[in-house]
């Protein structure tokens, strides 16, 4: 949403002292009805999903489906090539020696599931995403080191710079920063 002003606000960023503080803050923010907010930490914090009121990840389903497809494709490929497309008598064995095909089938199932899980994860996380507003904040860099941030984003329906800043301060945010950028 382009505006006339050359600088625009992306989010309000508040730093918290520890994983615990961030967790509690998250619960409050969730109760306050904010939707577009996130908690940035150097490592996953246990219980945060509940605190933020997030639903279970869908990666599992994607992986499962991809895995099944992989396996089905493998069995079909082996069966079709050795019975229909180019049948050959090998060691007097039946053309469709399914026992021998299990291993490749298993392999491709695994491969499908793995690709599904990784690609699914990236897609759901909208990665790679080399630009994000928060990167305008110098201090935000420390999320990957030892800092814990709460960011409420500008395109949240209930967003209002001052109210949000106040709110985050009240939650015990050590510093509260309004993230602006071109």
């Amino acid at each position, binding site marked *: 949403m382009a505006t006339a002003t050359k600088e625009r606000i992306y989010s309000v960023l508040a730093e918290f002292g520890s994983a615990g503080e961030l967790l509690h803050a998250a619960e409050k923010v969730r109760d306050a009805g904010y939707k577009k907010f996130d908690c940035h930490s150097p490592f996953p914090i246990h219980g945060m999903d509940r605190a933020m009121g997030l639903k279970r990840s869908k990666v599992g389903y994607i992986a499962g489906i991809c895995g099944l497809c992989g396996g089905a494709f493998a069995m079909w490929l082996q069966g079709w090539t050795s019975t229909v497309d180019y049948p*050959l*008598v*090998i060691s*007097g*064995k*039946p053309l469709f020696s399914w026992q021998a095909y299990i291993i490749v089938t298993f392999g491709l199932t695994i491969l499908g599931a793995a690709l599904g899980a990784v690609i699914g994860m990236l897609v759901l996380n909208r990665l790679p995403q080399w630009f994000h507003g928060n990167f305008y904040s110098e201090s935000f860099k420390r999320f990957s080191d030892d800092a814990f941030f709460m960011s409420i984003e500008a395109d949240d329906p209930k967003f209002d710079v001052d109210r949000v800043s106040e709110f985050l301060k009240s939650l015990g945010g050590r510093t509260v920063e309004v993230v602006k950028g071109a």
Partner: protein
Amino acid sequence: MELKDKEYWRSLEQLAGTDEFRHYLEREFPKGTVELAGNSWSRRSFLTTMGASLALAGLTSCRRPVEKIVPYVTRPEEIDPGVPNYYATTMPLGLSAYGVIVTTHEGRPTFIQGNPLHPSSKGAVSPIVQASLLDLYDPDRSRSVLHHGKETAWDDFVAWWKEQYDRYKQSGGEGLAVLSESFNSPTLSRLKRRFHETFPKAQWVAWEPVSDENIYKGIELATGRVLQPVYDFSRAQVILALDCDFLGTESEAIANTVGFTEARRVRSRSDAMNRLYVVEPSMTVTGMMADHRVAVDRGRVGSLLLALARVVTARGVPIEFARGVNRPNTELASDFVQVLSGDLGMHRGECLVVAGRAQPPAVHAMACAMNAALGNVGRAVTYHDIASLVLSSDTDLAALAANVEKNAVQTLIIAGGNPVFSAPRDMSLSTLLEAVNDTVHLSSHVDETSLSCSWHLPRAHYLESWGDAQSWNGANSVVQPVITPLMEGRGDVELYALLAGGEEVSAHDAVRETAQPLLGRAGFESKWRAGLHDGIMPGSGPAAVVPGLSMGELDLADADGLILSFDCSKHFDGRFANNGWLQELPDPVTKLAWGNAALISPKLAEEYDLENEDMVELDIDGRTLEIPAWISPGQADSSISVALGYGRAAAGRVGNGVGFNAYKLRTSDNMWFATGVKLRKLGPKYSLACTQDHGSMEGRPIVRENTLAGYKEKAEFYPREIEHPPPVSLWDEHKYDKGYQWGMAIDLNACTGCNACVVACQAENNIPIVGKEQVCNGREMHWMRIDRYYAGDIHDPRVLVQPMNCQHCEMAPCEQVCPVAATSHDPEGLNVMVYNRCIGTRYCSNNCPYKVRRFNFFNYMNELPELIKMAQNPEVTVRFRGVMEKCTYCIQRISLAKIKAKNEGRTVTDGEIRTACQAACPAQAIVFGNIGDANSRVSQLRQNDRRYRVLEELNTRPRTIYLAKLRNPNPALVKDTDAKAEGGHG
């Protein structure tokens, strides 16, 4: 390697010094090659370098002969691309002549098989006959006339000879001498007579290093006439072979094998079988077939025979005794002698006593006397007068040498042969030749003799020249060329005609001239054509005579001490040393390829603390030879054997420096064996290329056998088959019930292990020669190999042989492991190998229980000289580097027959397809055919109660089955170890 090179230089040094020699050396060995000889790639790189330079020569000389020759099939002469023509011709070898049928593709001879009409080949071949094809394409054959090493033309020689001719005609041939090989060609004899008419005073000597002279001498001793014994083994129930490898290296081995196996073939339990007693110094093909074998060194065979004769006489078969020194050796194998004499006595008229060419005349005289007394003459043996033939004579050679010594010879013409290499060393021929003003040498290669002669004349290969042969077993045949000389060679007939007549004559005309009286004026042309077509001319050889005995003085004293015996090698006398097929062919007994060794018994090895490949020095009064030792079970303890014909210095790039030259120890007084040999162990080892490291079956039922008696009781064979659950598959097996179903049966009772099939397979299927280094690495490429196992006591072993090629398993382990399906089954049950799909994982070879698959570790084919490529069979793909290959049951022959049958709207008849190995086999041990057809011979054999499958318990279902071996020991001599054949010792 160093050792080999040292050997090789020393033998050259004998010739060194003269300018000619240096000149030749440069000519023979291009720059850089001497260095190459040092490194392990020498032979291969050599061929590479040659390949290019020969390309042109090879291609341009592929022409058809000008004279009219008649194809075996009724096609017109013109070449029909893709369709082979077959010509009958004859391969002369010493006094033998083998009728052969040559397959030619677009004018290139590509395969040789025996002529069924010819009594010496009876449709089969020997390794030498089969391999002689490769000599035709030998790029090392000399390419032009040489005068003092300078290339000249035949015309120059002819001009030179004309002068000599006129000169000697005046002097009646004073100072003119000819040294030829022995021959049985009517034309050559005719020309020789003419020569004598022209030059009454000239001397003509025939000599060969390996000849049957002892046999003629012996029979002359006994009968006073020069006679050739001709054996019909099919008529002998009991055979005694005295140092006589009649199935292997003796003359007429092919015919002998055919007859012998005929009398030995057992079709059902009711059949009888002949019995073979062998007395020999070292294990031979014949010894491997023996029912009873005694290892006796060459010097004691005579006295054993004498002892036998005494016992036989005592048993009421009076044998005319030899006068003179005769000390029977009664200690030697007395029980053997007792039993044998009984057996002979019981089979009067249907037994045979044969002695080998290496035995002194006295032994042959005794053998002759025994055959006469036992009433075998006219039955299993007939005698033919061969006084008219030109026989090899050691004494004549000595006389010639003497003449040369007293400068009585100004011009010496050496027509064939290689005396400088092979003549007895006490004559030191090479130095003698320098005393002669003019020496002329006719020879296929610039060999040792050529190097010390002033003239060298290139000799044409028998497939390039006209000639004829009258073999004493009754065959008149014509040698007809199947290709014009690839190099400027000329045949013996041309040379002899020139010598005798002083002008050039067409060999074709000369041969026809000889045939004139034989065939008669009337209808000569048609008879001539018929003769060429069949390979057999009307008329027979010398008639059989029944000689009276008049024993001369014999010396049958025991020789004592350590005895060295000279054996005839797979290169005959060394003339085939440049033949890659023969060099790579493993010896039937020792399985040594690319070289010879001093064979010693395990006991002797212990005595002198020798292992295989230890270099030893053999010393016979001053003459020494350094040679690696090889332990050969079955060797007589007091005997060392060395094969002749190795250690050539000027054989060509293949044969040079391969093995060790035993001729260096051979003198005129010990042509075949020398007593009082000093054996000394030297430091180093010398690597020998052996294709089979392990000689024991480890008690496994691989080659299974039983005695005839045991078999008649119960069809049971040893080692017993491994107990295993009924072979059931976890899946529904593929059904092979439609159309042709190919299969093979190999009768181990017939197979002698002669190796003919191995060479035939190599020739038919373009199997590369890989050279010594590769064979040492275990990379020989033979699709068909002959496995040799020892059983019983290591000091008196039984030997079992087994041809082993792809078994075409119906449930082939090789197929399921190939990741790219490069080997699979065709509907006719063949295990097919798809070369152009193979990526070379070699997994199939690993998973083959029979290890019959062969891998192209290098690009062997590329390194083949163009000329040799001409020998290849266009029906068979050549394989590239990195590709697996194996026996295909000669699938190209199968297709050919199927196409032919289809065109004629019929099915392939039984026996119409003969695989190359089957076609070559003189023992008819191999049968191939359609197992789908219950009446085919192979199907019948698959019903035979001797049949078994190798490694049956693996449930691979081989299409090749074997018929168990039988032995027919004399019950009186049966030892427990023989009765139950077990794995035994290696």
